[in-house]
């Protein structure tokens, strides 16, 4: 190999099937004789079901069956992150509501019909008589005395109350501090909006007792586990296949009622069942993200030392506790409260609150964007209070470089970091010092420019299983992989994780090629089918490259060692005298005598002449449980101009310097950052769920919910630094969420910086033109 495959931005091997339309996503797979399912969904956010009359619907053309909650014998959907010491309540979440509906979109019946159109016709014709109940959608309001109650067994709507740190110690620090800044921060609800809506199809073979479920999953092995638990089928009789999956962003982690219902209906009726949600249905029933109301304080000394962070978080859980929901505003949130800074005192009380809204769960970044935002927002507020340059304030508080372990006040041990290097690089790219002069000049001309600078680190590559157990995650967080080489030297790598757009088939092949010497084009990465692949916990938390990648690197190293010993045997040399380069083994001093990795593979399969004690074949498996999280970091900078007349915001430049260790495929890394940045910027500028007081979703289609579009963005300016993770076999860190984590406060702070001459100090996200304009009016009114 002339080019080093590790570090090369090669084209993705996923793409030929995707650019030609040949890829098969769940709803592209037809099943002979399948019926289509439609779900009758509640139009009310909170109501008692008085009666359901499906007689008219049952008589419509093509209708084969209609079932309500009382017909269905499925166990409730489990919550799989049980936070310890939090007084956690897990209310029953039935696949279909039979007594009370708790959010608009809650399922009450299913229709099975010959066609999708007929199923919808019949679903519309099912008559449900509801008695409306009082509604609450705001998590802070829902936690107050007298709020409407959702579940009898969740007193005061409080599902859990998680405390990190020592309240009294924190209060003492704050009481003694020179400066304390405070803010109520709204982390608005977001719609994950993977472009492929969710879909599920199921087929049951009564003779063998086997159920096959095709579904839009980020973690088919977890889906198998939960579908088995909910249906009662033994796990070895459930095969879950995640075919091509069109994005997830966390929304395809949970197990939803719909997957359970298609499975049940397929078993009940003995025919295949297909279901695919529409986008409107997706916005009502697929998990939402964020939804925090935070009360945050930051303490500092007069000379700019950050002394503490303290927050009370009301986290909206929606109507039921989704699969991983309790872990998001707690473990994945509070533990990040010091970010890249030397902050010694942290306190977080996170209160999970039930509301008459769609359940929330992990959405890209999941808890960490909400932490990074509050930290970075408060840094700018402290800078304002001290009349300091926000860049100088940050620099002063950055953790100094460390290469192997740094324990912070939240008890995490960061793996490696050189925050100031990334910080300096980004500032240089942005021309920060010059910008401040340009900004002042522009202001003289009546133009409002602003800059936001975010330094961040985050925890990902989830994570050690022992930690998972300690924090109540009802699963492990290791991954496994098998590297299987055929006699002709072609590689099949089977992984338990389930990538869905990340380009992992390419990245992981690059790791194997780099370790083992097979050409990258001879390596195929296979995923997504629980029968074909080894156990794995899934693709989320920026963990597939760090965890699965490590498993593959180690499996490859085992094979390489086997190959080295076998090559030595074949060349009648001492294994210690074998040298390896570019897929070829040779004897030291006699380079003419060589065995290629392909030669050795064939001989291992033939097993005609094996060393004593060596098994035949050329295949290795590896379970890999990471010893720690990985901690990517970096600095993002945004420059905006605000039109004070309309409140419109123009994002003029966006600079991102990220450090995810050595980059296996820089083009794929860049793509993750581009996409993550746009998602995070969109939270700052345009995305936000709006419910009315009755719990009706006002942003129920893309006409009202603002998905970011190409013309809102400049070309991004990317840079990197490279600080390897000390504990990872190839030093890499995750990069799937960094863009989303860093970009929201970056753009928010830039806008507020632009508006500061106008006296505007706070605006709830998203920063729509109308809200910016209103804030300017209010500030002017105060003048």
């Amino acid at each position: 190999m002339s080019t080093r495959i590790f570090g090369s931005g090669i084209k993705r091997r996923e793409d030929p099937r995707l650019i030609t339309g040949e890829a098969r996503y769940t709803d592209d797979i037809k099943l002979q004789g399948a019926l289509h399912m439609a779900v009758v969904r509640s139009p009310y956010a909170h109501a008692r079901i008085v009666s359901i009359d499906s007689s008219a619907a049952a008589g419509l053309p093509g209708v084969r069956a209609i079932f309500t909650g009382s017909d269905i014998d499925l166990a409730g959907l489990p919550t799989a992150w049980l936070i310890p010491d939090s007084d956690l309540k897990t209310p029953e979440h039935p696949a279909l509501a039979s007594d009370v509906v708790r959010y608009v979109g809650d399922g009450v019946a299913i229709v099975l019909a010959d066609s999708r159109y007929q199923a919808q016709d019949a679903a519309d014709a099912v008559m449900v008589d509801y008695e409306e109940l009082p509604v609450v959608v705001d998590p802070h309001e829902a936690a107050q005395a007298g709020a409407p109650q959702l579940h009898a067994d969740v007193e005061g709507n409080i599902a859990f109350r998680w405390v990190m740190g020592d309240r009294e110690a924190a209060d003492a620090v704050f009481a003694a501090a020179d400066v304390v800044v405070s803010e109520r921060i709204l982390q608005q609800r977001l719609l994950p909006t993977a472009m492929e809506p969710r879909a599920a199809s199921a087929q049951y073979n009564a003779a063998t007792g086997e159920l096959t479920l095709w579904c839009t999953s980020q973690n088919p092995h977890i889906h198998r586990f939960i579908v088995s638990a909910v249906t009662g089928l033994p796990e070895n009789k459930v095969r879950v296949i995640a075919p091509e999956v069109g994005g997830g962003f966390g929304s395809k982690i949970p197990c939803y009622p719909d997957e359970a219902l298609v499975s049940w209906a397929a078993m009940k009726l003995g025919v295949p069942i297909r279901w695919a949600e529409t986008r409107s249905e997706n916005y009502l029933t697929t998990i939402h993200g964020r939804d925090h109301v935070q009360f945050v304080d930051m303490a500092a000394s007069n000379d700019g030392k950050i002394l503490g962070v303290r927050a009370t978080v009301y986290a909206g859980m929606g109507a039921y506790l989704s699969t991983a929901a309790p872990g998001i505003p707690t473990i994945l949130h509070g533990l990040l409260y010091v970010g890249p800074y030397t902050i010694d005192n942290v306190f977080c009380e996170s209160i999970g609150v039930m509301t008459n809204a769609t359940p929330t769960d992990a959405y890209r970044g999941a808890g960490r964007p909400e932490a990074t935002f509050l930290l970075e927002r408060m840094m700018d507020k402290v800078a304002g209070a001290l009349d300091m340059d926000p860049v100088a304030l940050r620099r002063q508080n950055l953790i100094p470089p460390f290469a192997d372990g740094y324990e912070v006040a939240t008890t995490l041990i960061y793996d490696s970091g050189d925050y100031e290097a990334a910080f300096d690089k980004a500032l240089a790219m942005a021309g920060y010092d010059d910008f401040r002069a340009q900004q002042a000049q522009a202001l003289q001309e009546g133009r409002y420019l602003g800059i936001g600078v975010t330094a961040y680190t985050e925890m990902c590559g989830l994570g050690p299983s022992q930690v998972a157990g300690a924090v109540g995650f009802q699963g492990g967080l290791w991954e496994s992989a098998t590297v299987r080489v055929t006699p002709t030297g072609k590689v099949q790598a089977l992984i338990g994780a389930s990538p869905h757009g990340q380009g992992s088939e390419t990245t992981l092949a690059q790791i194997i090629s780099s370790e083992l010497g097979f050409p990258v084009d001879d390596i195929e990465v296979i995923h997504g089918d629980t029968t074909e692949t080894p156990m794995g916990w899934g693709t989320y938390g920026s963990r597939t490259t760090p965890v699965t990648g490590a498993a593959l690197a180690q499996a490859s190293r085992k094979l390489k060692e086997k190959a080295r010993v076998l090559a030595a045997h074949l060349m009648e040399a001492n294994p210690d005298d074998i040298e390896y380069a570019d897929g070829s083994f040779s004897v030291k001093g006699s380079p003419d005598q060589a065995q290629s990795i392909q030669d050795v593979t064939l001989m291992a399969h033939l097993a005609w002449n094996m060393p004593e004690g060596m098994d035949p074949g050329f295949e290795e498996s590896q379970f890999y449980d990471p010893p720690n999280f990985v901690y990517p970091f970096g600095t993002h900078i945004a420059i905006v101009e605000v039109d004070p007349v309309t409140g419109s915001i123009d994002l003029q430049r966006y600079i991102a310097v990220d450090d995810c260790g050595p980059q296996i495929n820089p083009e794929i890394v860049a793509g993750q950052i581009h996409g993550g940045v746009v998602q995070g910027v969109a939270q700052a500028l345009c995305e936000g769920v709006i419910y009315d007081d009755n719990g009706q979703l006002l942003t129920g289609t893309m006409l009202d919910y603002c998905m970011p579009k190409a013309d809102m963005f400049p070309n991004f300016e990317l840079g990197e630094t490279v600080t390897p993770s000390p504990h990872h076999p190839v030093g890499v860190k995750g990069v799937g969420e960094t863009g989303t984590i860093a970009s929201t406060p970056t753009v928010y702070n830039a806008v507020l910086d632009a508006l500061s001459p106008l006296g505007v100090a706070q605006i709830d996200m998203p920063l729509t033109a109308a809200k910016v304009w209103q804030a300017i009016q209010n500030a002017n009114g105060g003048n």
Partner: protein
Amino acid sequence: MNVSMTINGEAVSREVEARTLLVHFIREDLDLTGTKIGCDTSQCGACTIHVNGKIAKACTLLAAQADGADITTIEGLAENGEHHPMQTAFWENHGLQCGYCTPGMIMASAAFVRDNPGASEDDIRHYLEGNICRCTGYHNIVKAVKQVADAAAGGA
């Protein structure tokens, strides 16, 4: 009712319900599943195809309206086994991730560059308002389209 049209150069004729959307006709009746559905309201562009050479959102047309039309879907964009230049550019520039918006994105972009060789980056970004991508942040999509636009203008 009967609808007949030419799809990717092949004449097809089927009996359908009058209400059948063109996108369902293509996906379900013809099993050309490259054309995707990503919204209900004509915003996302995942279903973008060419109808008589013009881009169309197949979710917002009835199959009946396309009776007699000449239609190209993503499956028919390549010619003689060679990727269309826009397909090649998306691949070379990492202009896709999950791939779900990609068929519509490529169909829209191919028509745009055909009609606007030499289009600027701003033109491209504005034009793509009818196609939504959640993965790429558009950066590499714009780069891919620009590459083809430049080549079409003779800049290659």
